[in-house]
Every structure is written in C-alpha cells, then in structure tokens.
C-alpha cells in the first residue's frame, strides 16, 4: 500500500540517529515548558524557531513537533501535582487528578494520565497517518476560492464554538488579520497601515505575538493571581504502573471514547478544550451512581477521559495543518509558521513535493509519543522539580528567554518591545474573554487568506458568486455561515420553540 511504503520511508528518516536525538531533546524541553505555567507548547516552539534555522527542515519539524508532544505530556504533571492547569484543556484533569494526588495517590494519577495520553496519541497518530494523505490528495484540487472557504470555516468555528464571548472572538480575529496586513502589501507592493512610521514597515511577526500573548501575558496573569506552587511530592512506583494497567482494562471504553472525541474535536480549530470537557462529561455520564459520586473526589476515569481527549486533539490538530495549511491549535500554528520560515509552502503540495518531510514528521509522531511515554514515566518527579525552583528566580529567567526568542526571529530590537506590548494585550484580553487563539491564527494565515480572497475575486472579475460555487466552496461557506451564526441563532431557535409549546418557560 502506498501509505505504508511512505510510512516506512518516514520511519527511516525519523529514525536516523540525529533526528532521534533531536526528537529526544524536543521532548525534554517540551515536558519542561509543559510543566511550567506560562510557557506552553506554542511558546516553547516560538522560542525555539530561531534555533531551527541551522537545521535541515525535517530535523527542524521533528524538534518542534516533539516539543509539542512533550508539552502535552508535561501539562498533566502541573495540573495533577500542583492543581494548576498549565493549559486550558488541562482544567478537566485537575477535578480528579489533584484530589487523587492529595490522597497520596499522585503516582497512580500521573501514571494513569500518561497512559491516557498515550492512548490519545495512538488514535490521533493513526488518524494522522491514514487520513492526512487522503485529505491532502483531495485538497490538491483546491483553488483560491476553496482555500478561502476553508479559512472562513476555520474562523467561524472559533466564533461559533469556542470561547465565552463570540463577539469578542470576532473582534480579536479581525484585529489578527489587521495586524497581519501591516507592512508591505504582497500583491501591490504598497505600504499599508504604517502611518509613515518606520518600525511598522516590517510588520508584526506572529512569533513575537505568540511569545508576548502566551508568554509574557501568562506570566503577568500568574503573578496577579498570586499563585502559590504548593505541589504534592511524588514518587513513581512500579505498582503505580501495574495498577494503571488494571484500571485501563476496566475503563478501556472511556479511554477509547476519550481518544476518539479528542481526535474528532481536535481536527477543528480550538477543539482541545471542549474535547477534554466533553470526554470528562461522557465518562461521568456512563458511570454507575456510586462511581458518579466519586467523580471530583479523585476517580481514575476522570483522569483517563480528559487526558486521552487532550492528547488526541493535540495530535489531530496536525492533520489540517499538514494537509490544508490550517493549524488546529496554537502550537500547530507556530509549527506552520516555522514551515513558512524554512521556505516550505504549506498545503497539500507538501505530500507531493516533500514526501520525506511530511512522512518524517508523521513517523516522528509515532517515535516521539512512544519515547515521550517512557520518558515521563521514568522522570516525572524530576520534571516536577522544575516547579520547585523559586518563582523569583524562575520568572526573570523566563522573561530573559522570551526576549531571546522574540529578538532572534528577525534580529530586530523593536520586536522585544512588541513582545512586551503583546504581553500587556494578552494580559488584558485574557481577563476580558477576548480569545487569543484565533487572533494568532489570523496573524499567521493573514497573507494566505487575503491572497486567496483577492485571487478568487480576480478569477471571477469581482463577482462574489465565486464563493457560492459548487461542489466544494458552497458547502464550506454554508457550513461556515451556520457555525459562525450559531451563538445568535440557537437562542432565537430556543425562544421560538419555547413559544410554540404552551406552558414552557
């Protein structure tokens, strides 16, 4: 089979000693950034991008994706031992993970979380391996209108499905696109939105925005809340792992369900957080009454479900990234940005032009998640020790590292100032429910979305009807319209039905 030959090629590429070493380094760094609150996978990848300039693209993407897997594994250490969710999708894990840790079952909780991650990873990677090439082959037929349709669907999914305030998500998205437009217009070569200011001519780099919004902003939020890192001490015993196997045998349905929910939701942008909550909810609903009462007190299935979903979602977020050039998560967006910097054109043509790159990435996902599992099982206490570094020492170091990352992208001093500015924006936006993931995505995809729109309009000589063209664009645009208007339509719908039924409130 074609896919299997390609996978073998990828396994050979990713299995080269240098690439395996890079993967291990990425995993270690990933677990560390995953453990640290304020530094997640997106930020870690953004800071590492300058380092990848000296690597071949395959090694570079393996480094970043391994860091991503590592950060997914690392996130649960923080939420279980310290009750601090490092990422929004780790919130559901704290419900049962932290109570278990407090009861002295930290090792068992962690081991359960790691194996749940692995299950999610396996299902996600299978989807990536077998579904991505099919989707890419289909997407090869996409022209500018179809690409624009996919973009529209992506952003309307953010507005309609993610976040507390749809209208603020819309505003944040629009400003993401506006920030992307600052600088030289790629089509006409004119200077836009620079207002005669020289520093604005280079535009805003999304890596700087990531480091500011997710790095500095998170650090400011952390100190404002005055978080105390009072972690539970952990020792991993062999019995913890064997008891996890027993639990996995008992709750295998929850693991599988969680993984599938994750993969399905993660495919859509911003899906990881709802996926973890959904999986948690499903797991709880499927339980007997006495088990249900245990939920929130430290039930092992309450760890299995959200963690499997989170990792599955994280993995499947790579599918639209590698096939359509549309990342499903902020970290995937940074990796996509890396692709552009390394001189690769994201999109389905990658499968044709750069099979070693694509399949190296897919194969390294297999290796990375397997190595990652053993790594966190063996060294979880060591990674948790990172959080025992006093905050007054850790925090200035993090800011220093962020500054290095922000400067190195373009060697511009102004970028470090922009990083601080984005830090304040991130701090204020997070508190006011402005969703930053679509803003970031808009900043990354701005040029692509705009040129898709303009090229389509050139093709149709200005007629908007080109966006309503069957067979592909029309369904995409209709789906986008339905999903994007959902927050406004669904209450109306509810009210209409409520009026229809007499006596209903």
């Amino acid at each position: 089979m074609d896919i299997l030959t390609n996978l073998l090629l990828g396994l050979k590429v990713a299995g080269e000693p240098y690439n395996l070493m890079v993967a291990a380094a990425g995993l270690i760094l990933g677990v560390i950034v995953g453990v640290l609150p304020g530094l997640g996978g997106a930020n870690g990848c953004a800071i590492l991008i300058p380092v990848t300039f000296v690597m071949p693209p395959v090694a570079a993407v393996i480094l970043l994706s391994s860091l991503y897997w590592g950060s997914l594994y690392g996130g649960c250490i923080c939420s279980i031992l310290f009750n601090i969710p490092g990422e929004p999708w780790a919130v559901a894990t704290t419900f049962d993970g932290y109570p278990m840790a407090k009861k002295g079952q930290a090792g068992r909780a962690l081991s359960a979380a790691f194996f749940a991650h692995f299950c999610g990873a396996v299902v996600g990677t299978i989807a990536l391996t077998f579904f991505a090439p099919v989707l890419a082959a289909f997407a090869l037929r996409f022209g500018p209108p179809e690409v624009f349709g996919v973009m529209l669907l992506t952003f309307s999914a953010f507005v309609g499905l993610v976040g507390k305030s749809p209208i603020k998500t819309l505003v944040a998205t629009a400003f993401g696109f506006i920030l992307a437009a600052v600088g030289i217009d790629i089509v006409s070569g004119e200077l836009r939105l620079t207002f005669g200011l020289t520093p604005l001519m280079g535009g805003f780099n999304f890596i700087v925005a990531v480091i500011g919004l997710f790095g500095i902003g998170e650090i400011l939020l952390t100190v404002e809340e005055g978080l105390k890192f009072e972690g539970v001490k952990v020792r991993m015993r062999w019995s913890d792992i064997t008891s996890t196997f027993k639990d996995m045998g008992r709750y295998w349905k929850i693991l599988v369900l969680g993984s599938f929910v994750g993969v399905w939701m993660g495919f859509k942008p911003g899906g990881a957080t709802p996926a973890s909550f959904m999986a948690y909810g499903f797991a709880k609903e499927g339980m007997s009454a006495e088990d249900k009462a245990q939920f929130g007190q430290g039930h092992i299935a309450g760890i299995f479900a959200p963690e499997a979903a989170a990792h599955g979602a994280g993995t499947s977020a790579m599918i639209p990234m590698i096939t359509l050039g549309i990342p499903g998560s902020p970290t995937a967006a940074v990796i996509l940005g890396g692709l552009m910097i390394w001189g690769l054109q994201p999109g389905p043509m990658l499968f044709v032009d750069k099979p070693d790159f694509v399949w190296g990435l897919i194969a390294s996902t297999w290796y990375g998640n397997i190595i990652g599992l053993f790594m966190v099982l063996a060294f979880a206490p060591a990674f948790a020790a990172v959080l025992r570094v006093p905050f007054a020492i850790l925090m200035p170091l993090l800011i220093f590292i962020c500054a290095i990352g922000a400067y190195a992208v373009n060697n511009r001093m102004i970028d470090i100032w922009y990083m601080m500015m984005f830090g304040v924006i991130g701090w204020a936006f997070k508190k006011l429910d402005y969703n930053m993931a679509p803003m970031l995505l808009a900043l990354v995809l701005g040029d692509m979305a705009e040129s898709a729109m303009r090229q389509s309009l050139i093709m149709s000589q200005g007629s908007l009807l080109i966006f309503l063209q069957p067979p592909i664009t029309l369904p995409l645009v209709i789906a986008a319209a339905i999903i994007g208007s959902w927050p406004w339509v669904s209450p109306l719908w509810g009210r209409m039905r409520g009026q229809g039924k007499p006596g209903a409130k």
Partner: protein
Amino acid sequence: MTTKAADILVAIILLGFGLLVAWDSLRLGSGWGMEGPKAGFFPIVMAAIALAGCVVVIRQAMKGTSSVKGGKPFVPAGGMKPVLTVFIPACGMVLLTEVVGLYVAAMIYLAAYIKIVGGYRWRTVLLVSIPIPLIFYWVFEKLFLIPMPAGMFGAQILPF
C-alpha cells in the same frame, strides 16, 4: 477600575484603532483597481467587522450582558503591585539592552530582581545571574551563530 469600565475602555481603544485602519484603507483605495481588489480592500472589510464588533461589545458591557462580570475590580485587590514588579523591571531590562546588549542587561536584571524582589543571598544571586546568561551567550552566539542585540556598548563588554 471595575471590569465593566475596563471592558468599555478596551473596546473604545480598539474602536480607535479600527477607525485608523479604516482611514488608511480608504487612503489606499478599497475598491476595484487595475488588477483586482486594491490594497485597502481586505483591511477595510476587517476594520468594518472590528468596528461593528466593538460597538456590540460596548453595548453588552453597558447593559451588563457581557460574559465578564462587570462589577468586580479589573485587577483584584493587591494584584496590581506584583504585576508591576514584574513588568517594570522587565521593561528596564529591554531598555538596558538598547545600551549594553541583551546578555549584560540580563545579568543586571536577574541579579537585581533576585536580590531585591526575591531577597536571596548574594551567593544565590551571583550563581544564577552570571553563569546563565553566559551559557546562553555561548549557545546562541558561538554554537548556533545567532546574534543577540549588542546595544551601544555590548560588543566592548563581551568581546570574546
């Protein structure tokens, strides 16, 4: 400041930026040019969405239907001081970077922060603030050949 006031203030600031964007897009031309939509076409669409959105955000905040709880203070009591103790020294480091380069600025920043805010002993301060920037210096400048800002005098201070 209450969260409601901050919500409105941020929306007004965004509204202002939206207007700036719309104004510049109109200057560039947002209609149909010689070869397709002009440079201002896409920005003005986005500005229109942003402006309309900001108006709704302000209205929601006024009516109290916003998703954020308006009555609470925007920064909880005692929250502003730690934020500023992080933010101001960090800005100080960036400012110093302009003068003495990132590595030297980082040494001063780390030492000052760990000593003054953290209140650690000089031994701890020096063990963190001197070697760590030097390690980064070696990794980035020597190993990966990625230059960091040297500022006005950085090249003289770290000449090796």
